[in-house]
């Protein structure tokens, strides 16, 4: 009989790769008897699906309040100006 720890590993691996017959049977047997692991398996599947969906939709995930700091914005601006200026010279 698999332990809960082994089941948590297989439940995660199952989201990335087809499990072997033995692994699948072990998972089914264990979750048939263990409510906690049933919850766990279901939860990480929900997590997986919602993240994939958000990623496909191109959702930002980070709030709009996450912005470049004034300092880094200035630094980037200067780097760009310098590069633009260099382009002028070569043209």
């Amino acid at each position, binding site marked *: 009989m698999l332990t809960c720890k082994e089941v948590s590993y297989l439940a995660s691996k199952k989201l990335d790769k087809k499990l072997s017959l033995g692994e699948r049977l072990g998972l089914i047997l264990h979750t048939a008897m263990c409510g*906690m692991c049933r919850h766990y398996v279901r939860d990480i599947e929900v*997590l997986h699906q919602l993240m994939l969906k958000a990623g496909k939709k191109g959702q930002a995930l*980070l709030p709009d309040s996450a912005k470049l700091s004034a300092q*880094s914005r200035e630094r980037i601006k200067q*780097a760009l100006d310098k590069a633009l200026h260099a382009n002028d010279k070569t043209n």
Partner: protein
Amino acid sequence: MVYELSSPEQWLQTHGDVLYRFGLARVREPEVAEDLVQETLLAALKAQQNYSGKASERTWLIGILKHKMIDYFRKQTRQNTQEFDDELLNNDAEYFDQTGHWQIDFSSWSKPDKSVEQEQFLQVLEQCISRLPARMAQLFMLREFEDMSSDEICQLMSISSMNNFWVMLSRVRGQLRHCLDLNWNNA
């Protein structure tokens, strides 16, 4: 429809924060995300003659950012990551007792069905991800958000074996599930 580029002086103003958020969500380190914005805009400057107009300016810039991000992951050498990975893999998850049984109690969350609930769920999840070590968060984002294959991630992030990759991914999913358990049900 054929898109046209605006003048490069405007790129930072128009797209800077969007590019920053895109990078930060995936690399999880503010300084790195800032550098990525700079590298992206500089590369865009050089590449603007090749712009075909098939994608919008923003999509084009994000495409360049993705390449810069891949370069960043490649540059993290095995020496830098080995220690973190070894420690993580050697330390057993705190959620199990010696016999491999759960030593925390939990129930299942209610699955967020409505789009408003899903928005809230993602907000809580984002907070949970931001508390992870950067490397774990990067791994999770590449796998779940970017839908990059396991093989690609292993190679890109110099993870020494597929088995280690699955252990790390399993660990990060467990941590996030736990964090959501504490913060989402009550949200």
